[in-house]
């Protein structure tokens, strides 16, 4: 039986890979595990290995070709076997090759492979990726049938209406709830594709698909040390996803960092003033809400900081959607305050509270973590003075906020003043934002917080 | 229409009255008036919408109830009652207040409002309850008789039922078993000429239901159910027989109900003339006459006894009105022991 050799997917955002060179030729006899070609993606070189003993045959791509992941690049056949018939591949990926074997897909950020071949706006593609939507199932309303963001949203709405429900057992639903998984993104192995408990558990554990050959190694197996046993925590689930994204961001986006101390006296006063005017029974305005508002204001003044870098294009986003990082037991999630520049403080405040709570209980809706254009991370409550965060792609900036604490600073006449200072660090993607812009943006944030009334202007 | 039955001999009547004595006799007369008052009051309350469900009045049958129950050791012997049983309740000596309260479905009723008219019981005094099922108590009487025999007491059980019950299969099974084992049970049939609308002539091929006793080789007797002493006589003798270990007796008491089967009975199956005819055999004036003749009461006392009977019922209604409705929180009480 001819065994397919497919182009493996090494990174979660990886959609294609380029063949650097073939290490064997048509007809070569190989053993399972032998490296047969070198491929590259995002400047990372990897080797593809033979998935079985046999003879290499039917090589479909040459060095220099860009191959969509999971596409068949060759076969391993046995003596006397034929290579199966397949249309020759074109440069524009048009194959509909399926992965070697269906398996539970990691919870987040894994759109089906068939999405790759469909025309869609980057936003639509990103949203589809986040929701696990197969773009080939979505009707496009854009030019020449291109799928827009609205199209994906409509599709999602239709799915959640009656009839589009996920078939899943109560036990699977419970596991999905417990691990904040989206059932729609779990492949079901039960009858009629039903999601069983074991599928949900696997998604939670985030097993990799058994790819054909040469995949990036799974979490390294640590051999038992005789003198004592380290506690092994496999890199799985949300942790793994975060790890991959952070690595990608850190490697790809050149971060430049700006740190500034902000005098929060007036912000404190303003907050007190505002809260005295909050009607009975309404939530008090928090400092987080004020920081979100100030940041949104600054983003309006420096729109380049409110942009996406995707597909070698900088897209200055029309809406200011500020994400707030919320710590979870086993990771991190970033619910978004949409249109933060247009919402009042009370509304922002109540959204902050609601979203954080639901983030912690695992009840966020997909649209609540989508479309963020900038992220704020606040470790002040952990007692941290200053820290740095890694940018959340495709965003280009992230603000790390430390605690507000009294420090002595010299006054006008060098007299010591005890002021409530908050140290914030801005990280921006240097491919998009230069030093001056970054600095200006950050000082705008500072100005907004040091003179809250100026936000009204 | 069966009504020809031998009247009790004068000597025997006098003997019985002697046995009963003036005090008890007066009590019996008052019980009969109280029964009539109870039934009339029940009718009134139902008409006023103060009670619900179904109700089976025994107006006209008071003599049967008084004669049968007083012939036994009420509270020591066992009573199994039927659905037209208010008279038997009263004659057995059960508390009129609690009977009325149960009739009105109140917590202070014998059954805490759970039973109603058809299921009133006074278990502590061996009144094992009225029964909503025709012939329902007849097989239970077998068990009561067996229990008495096994416990070796001199108790007797009496089970009341109507003419209709004598055609249920359970009647035959039970009489047979009681006969075979010589159980100390009195099978007392109040033949008021109609089951519901079914006249006895149409439901039986025998002239007297008591004839069926011979099928089980036990004594059977038909008496004038509207003559207290005739009934008292028959039941006393049957009780004596039972206590002596000679087994069951089937007694048929001929009587008549003045009202329909239940409230919803339009009585299309009988004539006004027939009702009038039987009303002339009203058991209460007949017993009153006996007592007057025996010098147990005067005319004034007779009237006073009547008034006392009616007064008793007024008191009972007052008691029942003051009794609370059962608490819904106790809805599921008493299902299991």
């Amino acid at each position: 039986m001819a065994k397919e050799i497919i182009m493996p997917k090494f990174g979660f955002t990886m959609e294609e890979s380029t063949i650097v060179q073939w290490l064997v030729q048509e007809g070569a006899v190989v053993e399972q595990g032998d490296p047969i070609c070198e491929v590259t993606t995002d400047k990372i070189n990897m080797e593809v290995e033979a998935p079985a003993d046999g003879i290499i045959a039917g090589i479909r791509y040459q060095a220099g070709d860009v191959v969509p992941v999971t596409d068949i690049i060759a076969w391993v056949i046995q003596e006397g076997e034929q290579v199966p018939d397949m249309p020759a591949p074109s440069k524009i990926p048009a194959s509909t090759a399926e992965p070697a074997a269906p398996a539970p897909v990691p919870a987040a950020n894994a759109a089906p492979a068939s999405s790759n071949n469909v025309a869609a706006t980057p936003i639509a593609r990103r949203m589809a990726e986040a929701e696990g939507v197969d773009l080939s199932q979505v009707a496009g309303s854009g030019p020449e049938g291109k799928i827009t963001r609205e199209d994906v949203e409509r599709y999602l709405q239709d799915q959640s209406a009656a009839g589009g429900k996920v078939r899943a057992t109560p036990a699977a639903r419970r596991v999905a709830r417990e691990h904040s998984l989206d059932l729609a993104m779990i492949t079901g192995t039960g009858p009629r594709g039903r999601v069983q408990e074991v599928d949900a558990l696997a998604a939670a554990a985030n097993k990799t698909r058994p790819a054909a050959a040469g995949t990036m190694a799974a979490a390294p197996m640590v051999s038992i040390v005789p003198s004592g046993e380290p506690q092994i925590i496999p890199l799985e689930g949300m942790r793994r996803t975060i790890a991959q994204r952070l690595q990608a961001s850190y490697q790809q986006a050149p971060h430049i960092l700006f740190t500034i101390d902000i005098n929060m006296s007036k912000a404190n006063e303003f907050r007190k003033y505002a809260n005295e005017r909050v009607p009975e029974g309404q939530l008090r305005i928090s400092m987080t809400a004020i920081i979100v508002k100030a940041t949104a204001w600054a983003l309006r003044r420096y729109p380049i900081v409110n942009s996406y870098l995707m597909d070698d294009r900088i897209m200055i986003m029309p809406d200011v959607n500020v994400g707030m990082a919320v710590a979870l037991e086993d990771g991190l999630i970033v619910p978004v305050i949409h249109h933060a520049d247009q919402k009042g403080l009370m509304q922002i405040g109540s959204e902050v509270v609601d979203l954080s709570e639901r983030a912690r209980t695992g009840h966020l809706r997909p649209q609540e973590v989508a479309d963020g254009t900038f992220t704020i991370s606040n470790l002040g409550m952990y007692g941290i003075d200053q820290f740095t965060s890694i940018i959340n792609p495709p965003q280009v900036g992230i603000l790390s906020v430390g605690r507000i604490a009294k420090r002595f600073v010299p006054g006008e006449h060098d007299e010591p003043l005890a002021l409530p200072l908050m140290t914030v660090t801005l990280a921006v993607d240097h491919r998009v934002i230069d030093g001056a812009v970054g600095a200006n943006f950050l000082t705008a944030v500072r100005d907004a917080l040091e003179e809250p009334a100026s936000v009204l202007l | 229409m069966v009504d020809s039955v031998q009247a009790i001999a004068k000597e025997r009547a006098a003997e019985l009255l002697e046995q009963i004595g003036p005090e008890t006799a007066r009590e019996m007369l008052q019980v009969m008036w109280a029964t009539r008052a109870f039934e009339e009051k029940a009718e009134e309350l139902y008409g006023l919408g103060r009670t619900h469900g179904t109700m089976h009045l025994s107006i006209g049958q008071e003599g049967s109830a008084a004669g049968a129950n007083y012939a036994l050791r009420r509270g020591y012997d066992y009573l199994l009652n039927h659905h037209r049983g208010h008279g038997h309740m009263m004659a057995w000596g059960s508390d009129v207040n609690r009977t009325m309260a149960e009739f009105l479905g109140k917590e202070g009723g014998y059954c805490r409002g759970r039973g109603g008219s058809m299921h009133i019981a006074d278990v502590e005094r061996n009144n094992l309850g009225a029964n909503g099922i025709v012939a329902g108590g007849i097989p239970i009487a077998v068990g009561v008789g067996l229990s008495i025999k096994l416990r070796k007491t001199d108790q007797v059980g009496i089970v009341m039922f109507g003419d209709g019950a004598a055609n249920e299969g359970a009647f035959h099974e039970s009489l047979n078993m009681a006969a075979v084992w010589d159980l100390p049970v009195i099978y007392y049939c109040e033949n008021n000429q109609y089951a519901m609308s079914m006249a006895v002539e149409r439901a039986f091929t025998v002239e007297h239901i008591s004839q069926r006793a011979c099928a089980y080789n036990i004594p059977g007797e038909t008496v004038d159910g509207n003559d207290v002493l005739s009934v008292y006589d028959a039941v006393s003798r049957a009780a004596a027989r039972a206590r002596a270990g000679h087994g069951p007796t089937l007694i048929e008491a001929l009587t008549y109900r003045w009202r329909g089967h239940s409230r919803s009975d339009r009585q299309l199956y009988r004539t006004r003339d027939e009702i009038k005819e039987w009303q002339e055999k009203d058991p209460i004036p007949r017993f009153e006459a006996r007592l007057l003749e025996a010098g147990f009461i005067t005319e004034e006392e007779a009237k006073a006894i009547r008034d006392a009977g009616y007064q008793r019922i007024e008191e009972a209604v007052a008691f029942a009105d003051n009794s609370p409705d059962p608490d819904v929180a106790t809805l599921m009480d008493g299902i299991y022991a």
Partner: protein
Amino acid sequence: MPEPRELTYMEALREGLRQAMETDERVFLIGEDIGVYGGAFGVSAGLIDQFGGERVIDTPISEAGIAGAVTGAAMTGMRPVGEIQFMDFVTLSMEQLVLQAAKVRFMFGGKATVPFVLRMPGGSGTGAAAQHSESLENWFVHVPGLKVVMPSNAYDAKGLLLASIYDDNPVIFIEHKLLYKTKGHVPEEMYQVPLSSTNVAREGTDLTVVATSVMVQRALEAAAQLAGEGIEIEVVDPRTLLPLDDAPIIESVKKTGKLLIVHEAVGTGGFGGEIAARVAASDAFDYLDAPIRRLTGKDMPIPYNRMLEYHTVPQVENIVEEARKLAQGAY
């Protein structure tokens, strides 16, 4: 270690009756052909010799009379144990059981007590055809005021019988003809197996099988077979169907995530529906990983032909197959 004392299910019942009658003069037996004949299935054999005809009472063919007799005797201080010769004949006792025995206490405001046991053999497998093979337990489960007990083995038979005799409520005690000759460990002393106490007859992890009466034995046989395939089923025996102790069933389903209910009686309107509904409404719902399945008697009368009869109710191989399919995710 001495050999555990083994009696048949029938001997266990007889011993329970005997010991109760020896120690309590309120207990007596009543039924058809229970005296010299020893009972249609032999349960009361020899008891008339020991206790005499007064306490082992043969009756005419009068099921209504028998039911009324135990009711009346129980209401007046006795603890009778009646026998209905075949469960099928209890249909003639229904008025006394449903409208009198079950309801007297309630109707009288909690006053009377009706402590009797009415024993009856039910079930098919003896070629006795449609009118001598009934499983009507769910009729009685539907009548509050009664208790319904179905022992599945000799140990439980004696223990549940003694518990039933000393329960103050009317107990419908349903034996199975095919169990009478099965053996089990039965201690000599008087012991009670509490009513309303569900038993986990066998622990397992892959699915829960709730079974009653003879189906418990069949489920255990199926379990042994399936263990060889690596499938471990948990067998749960309610023992008392009314009032039902459902907590162990719910706990079991939470553990295994899969439930198969097996009973001989006709499926439609059968006890399996009650269990399924309770489990689906409980905590266990969030742990169900497959639909709840029932394996029951077919919706038909029991046929005379032995082979047809065999196929009318669940057999060991049916339980094996259904359990295997459920465990392996076929549903």
